[in-house]
């Protein structure tokens, strides 16, 4: 039965994570960086392992009754709930719409589940709901199911929202992080780190004045036009949210077993975002975006894809920021503005403002 009277562990269900390293959940486990990756890879993927999940894409691709569907889910626990350029409601719609779109699918229906804290003002809830309604209408998706739960006062930050989404894939579209190949070109649809810095500006303890607004936006119409332009030459799509452009590209490089070379000078970034990153000591490559799209495309289709991105109202500042190379596999290398090179790793832990 058991050695030395200890209770038997369920067969093969011993936690594969080295628990001694972090016996409790840390904030960084949700930060989108290496610790998140370890938790997902070490615990969840281990438990639920299957070929669909294993791609670790923003959404899952499943075939049901002959139709190819993209299915994705995301939870939103943002503080503050209302921020310049959006709120938790619009963000919850955009986030899931984008995750479905990044599979190359056309998002159609979403669900909305609310976890509400006792005492949360109805007026704020209505504001959030209206904002979700507007975002869904703009993105052309319908909220078709939902759920509501209330937790005791003090047990939640007002409201948490989970959304899931379903979308339909056109024939011939084959988007997967595994399709990045040496020779491909890396495009980015606009200036980085806007959402993260806009949120920081209203976070307690760090407040600063800025005209910056979150870039939170639905990207499905942009994705549709990219696919229309370049079709199967579009190999990978990714919205670089938590963990920023650096973490998203690292995941792609690791997944596809390729290297990615970035050119620092070509990465679009606004003066204000740079100012914010300088004073907080943050690296903009690791700061979150909520309305930007990374596209990895066949070299011959790069110019046309870039033009299509730029034509879109959300893609005016789109740029080619790098290329996929064979070596060193699994690694993102940045060519710095002054002519040096460095490896751009996954985010480790939470990105904390540094002073010193």
């Amino acid at each position: 039965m058991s050695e030395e009277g200890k209770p038997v562990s369920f067969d093969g269900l011993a936690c594969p994570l080295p628990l001694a390293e972090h016996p409790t959940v840390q904030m960084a486990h949700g930060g989108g960086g290496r610790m998140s990756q370890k938790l997902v890879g070490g615990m969840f993927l281990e438990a639920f392992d299957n070929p669909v999940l294993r791609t670790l894409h923003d959404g899952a691709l499943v075939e049901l009754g002959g139709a190819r569907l993209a299915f994705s889910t995301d939870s939103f626990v943002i503080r503050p709930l209302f921020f310049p350029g959006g709120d938790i409601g619009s963000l919850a719609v955009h986030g899931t719409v984008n995750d479905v779109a990044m599979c190359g699918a056309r998002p159609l229906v979403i669900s909305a589940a609310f976890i509400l804290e006792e005492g949360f003002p109805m007026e704020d809830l209505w504001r959030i709901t209206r904002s979700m309604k507007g975002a869904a209408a703009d993105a052309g998706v319908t909220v078709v199911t939902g759920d509501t739960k209330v937790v005791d006062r003090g047990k939640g930050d007002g409201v948490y929202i989970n959304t899931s989404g379903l979308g339909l894939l056109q024939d011939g579209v084959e988007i997967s992080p595994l399709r990045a190949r040496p020779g491909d070109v890396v495009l980015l649809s606009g200036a980085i780190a806007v959402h993260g810095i806009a949120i920081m500006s209203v976070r307690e303890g760090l407040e600063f004045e800025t005209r910056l607004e979150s870039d939170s936006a639905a990207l499905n119409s942009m994705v549709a036009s990219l696919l229309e332009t370049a079709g199967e030459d579009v190999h990978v799509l990714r919205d670089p949210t938590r963990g920023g452009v650096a973490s998203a590209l690292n995941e792609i490089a690791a997944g596809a077993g390729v290297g990615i070379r970035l050119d620092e000078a070509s990465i679009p970034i606004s003066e204000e975002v740079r100012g914010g990153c300088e004073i907080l000591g943050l690296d903009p490559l690791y700061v979150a975006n909520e309305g930007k799209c990374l596209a990895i495309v066949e070299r011959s289709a790069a110019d046309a894809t870039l033009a299509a991105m730029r034509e879109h109202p959300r893609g005016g500042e789109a740029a080619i920021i790098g290329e996929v190379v064979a070596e060193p596999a699994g690694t993102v290398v940045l060519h710095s503005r002054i002519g040096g090179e460095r490896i751009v790793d996954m985010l480790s832990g939470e990105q904390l403002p540094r002073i010193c």
Partner: protein
Amino acid sequence: MCLGVPGKVIEIMPDELGMTMGRVSFGGIVKEVCLAYVPEAEVGDYVVVHVGFAISRIDEEEAAQVFEYLREMGELEELDVPQPHEAPS
């Protein structure tokens, strides 16, 4: 140690205890900064800010020193690199 970021003073005002505070812009991001240690700073000046405190006023003339140094170095030595273009503005 000691992240110090240059920003432009856009407003100077005393706080409730008479300490000199100011609003400083970093590329458009504005933070309230203590100016007590840079009494010579005026609106429009650039200051180096560390943890919410200005620790120096940037000397505009000296700021070009690096480029002058490069120019002189280029004249003194035969560097096998392209000759300097215009210094960046």
